[in-house]
């Protein structure tokens, strides 16, 4: 297959992000950590969209932040263009950031209320221009034209460039955010739930815009959402996260038609189907219990407490990723017999 020959543009290897929490419980001073992201690995190939899905608090946003180095990872590697971003110098990190830009979740909070749209979109250009990191030095005029191009590209009237963010609707603001992310011509865009704060009709507009941009500019997306329909619509591959771990990765179509992991099944069954007849007949898998607190170390399967099909082995052994099909991996001990690990992977 040609894709296996293709080199991944972004590799994440065993990424861990732990947040220390200082307990002020008198004499007993035990430094606990929240394991927001606890060892995940995935590859992103150029031109494709990798969706990350999971419930609230499972570490999706933290993963993205760690990749962008906004939060320093505790351990692991983020390899972009052959360089581990966790270890590179400040200058190299800046160079890399030029190619990794972010779109943020909240279109209301992610734009500086004191800046006009023009200065918001021009800001990355100005910063990189000042640091002489752009391939070609830009004059103010070129920056201006670039800003106008970008505004038109994301579907904003360029007459609005002197306005302030509060004068725009949520969808328009998210377009501004997208224009800002595109300003430096990045290769990878990390989209941290870019549509969850918008209503459904606007969501569709923004998703279509992102797809168009991907087609035109050959962008690679790392797309986070908790909405399964959104992920299904936009992504080529999907990672399902639970409690800071990836439990299943697969191609989008495959995942939705043939979920393997019990958590994925439960998650998919929780999404309502917009057809009352089907919805009435459908059997939902209801998980018992709550998501355990991420502050303790797991020795067994992360999903053990809530799994409907748990076995003895699950309690004390962390399941590896079993290969279920091409590009379809799943971490569940039940698959051990059907899809045994290759010798090398053991």
């Amino acid at each position, binding site marked *: 297959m040609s894709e296996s020959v293709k080199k991944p543009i972004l590799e994440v290897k065993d990424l861990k992000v732990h947040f220390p929490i200082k307990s002020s419980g008198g004499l007993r001073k035990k430094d606990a950590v929240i394991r927001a992201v606890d060892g995940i690995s995935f590859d992103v190939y150029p031109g494709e969209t990798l969706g990350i899905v999971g419930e609230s608090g499972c570490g999706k946003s933290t993963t993205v932040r760690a990749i962008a180095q906004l939060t320093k990872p505790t351990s692991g590697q983020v390899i972009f263009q052959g360089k581990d971003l966790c270890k590179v110098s400040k200058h190299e990190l800046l160079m890399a950031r030029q190619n990794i830009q972010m779109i943020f979740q909240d279109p209301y909070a992610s734009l500086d209320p004191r800046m*006009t749209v023009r200065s918001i979109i021009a800001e990355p250009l100005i910063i990189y221009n000042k640091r002489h990191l752009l391939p070609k030095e830009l004059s103010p005029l070129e920056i201006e034209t670039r800003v106008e191009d970008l505004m038109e590209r994301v579907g904003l009237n360029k007459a609005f460039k002197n306005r302030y963010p509060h004068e725009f609707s949520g969808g328009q603001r998210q377009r501004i955010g997208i224009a800002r992310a595109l300003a430096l011509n990045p290769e990878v865009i990390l989209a941290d739930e870019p549509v969850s704060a918008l209503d459904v009709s606007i969501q569709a507009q923004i998703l279509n815009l992102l797809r168009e941009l991907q087609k035109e500019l050959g962008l690679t997306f790392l797309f986070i959402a908790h909405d399964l329909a959104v992920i299904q619509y936009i992504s080529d591959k999907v990672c399902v996260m639970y409690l800071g771990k990836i439990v299943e990765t697969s191609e989008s179509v495959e995942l939705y038609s043939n979920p393997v992991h019990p958590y994925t099944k439960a998650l998919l069954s929780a999404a309502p189907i917009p057809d009352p007849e089907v919805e009435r007949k459908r059997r939902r898998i209801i998980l018992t219990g709550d998501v355990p607190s991420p502050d303790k170390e797991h020795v067994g399967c992360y999903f053990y407490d809530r799994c409907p099909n748990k076995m003895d082995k699950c309690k004390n052994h962390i399941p590896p990723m079993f290969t279920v099909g091409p590009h379809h991996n799943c971490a569940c001990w039940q698959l051990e017999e059907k899809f045994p690990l290759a010798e090398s992977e053991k």
Partner: protein
Amino acid sequence: MKFTDRFKKQIHDREEMHKLNKAGRNGAKNEFNQTVQGNSLSKDAWRRLRKNKAAVVGMCVVILYAIISLCAGILPIYSYEEIIIDHQYLPPSLTKTAGELMLKRQLSEMYATSWRQGRLSVTEEEDAMLNNWITLDDTNKVWNWCYEEGEKQRAAGTYVFSASEQKKYDRLQDSIKNDIQVTINSVRWVNPENGKSYKLDNLDYDTLVSIYAKALGGIDEQKVRTSLETGVNSQIQTEVKTKNSESELTAEDIQSLVAMEKDSLGEDGVQAKEKSLAVDNINVLIQNAMTKQIKQEIKAGTNKEFPYKDTETLFDDINFKVEASLKNSRRYILGTDNLGRDLLSRIIYGGRISILIGIVGTITSLFIGIIMGSLAGYFGGRVDYYIMRFVDVLYGLPYMLLVIICMAIFGTNILNLFFALAMVSWLTIARMVRGQIMSLKNQEYIEAARSMGAGGWRIIFRHLVPNSLSVIIVYSTLRVPEFIMQESFLSFLGLGVQAPLASWGSLIGDSTQGMTKYPWRLVYPAIVMTLFLFSMNFFGDGLRDAFDPQSKNML
């Protein structure tokens, strides 16, 4: 060549950008096919400010104050430091000259005395009324009443001046007509050899001595030298005596202290003192000579138009400007103070200093406060801890004490006053900015800026500080009045502005003595100051609203 090319390109770019902006502003249509116009932040702010009437009025008043204090030097007002003892405590008057006021005062005094002596005929009721006023300590009323009654009786011929009164009256009339005030300005010595002119201060000692000797009537230079030496000696002696006024010193002690003082000054220092003494003396000589000359001219019958301005030469080669005016034809619109200085010009010059202190103090405290506060707030952790503990320690010290100590150590002059006030007044701003920045720095747009590679300074000064600007602006406009108040307090204590300089605070402080007798000395500076503080507050409020794009007070 390369440079000019770049310059040309820049100009070209700017023109292009202008065109682009114009197209963007005037040509663009929105989805309702309306023409859309954009604005820059400052334009936007100005537009919003204009809608706020109170702020505009405040701004105009502040600008007016600023213009008046900037132009104080060229305004047609009397000198703020010229002491005319005859003119002390003249009440404000738009129509009457100083002479008329003096005459009125003299007359009312005379009538009041004659009432006491029983020469002014009053009824019993009136007598009781006057006595009642005196017990109420209302001398102004007594004087006014006596003046009116006396004038009435004198006109009717029922009251006649006594001989001494007539003499006094005539003398005053004479002096009102003839007294002149001579002011000498820009005294320069022209070198007869090359025709260049020098300021007296810049001359060397020997030339100065020779000029002085000439001015004194051509006496021996050696004598002049010794007289200067003894003059400086006695100056130092009085200084030493006032310094050690508590301890009793023998003549020998004083001698040794003087010698010590002289040693510490060094030969140059002593000579500088001698020089300044010589310059002062020469100025006095010139003034006296000119006064004499002009008086003689008047006596001789030459008609001189007053005020009279001229450039004159005395003692062969000293040039100076002379201004002479009839002293008692002056008009004091706002009255005079205890030393006969014009209150109007004192208020204007005082405002100059007060506003300067308000603004400079605010700017320095803002500067320090914003930097310290944003460092503490943005970097957090240890930086925050140490900066805030330092602030806490300074907070713990009594604020005024710190300023007073500062002033005592470094001496009382205006620069030190600025320094001392700024030293202790940035604390609140630092705390406020820190709090603002701590709450803002976790906003998503800050994270966005970081993901775009913005450095700490850019984030602080492009994102965090502008976003906390509304609080800072309001606070700093409230600071300006506070600084003016503090300065007044210090001046009141005698640690602020030193006479003859004035500030609103010191004017008000000085006026508290004799508040009931000379109320104008308190009222006018107070009104002027209050008006300024009011407008400053309104203006500040307006500025805050104007600089906040999300402000609901727009349109």
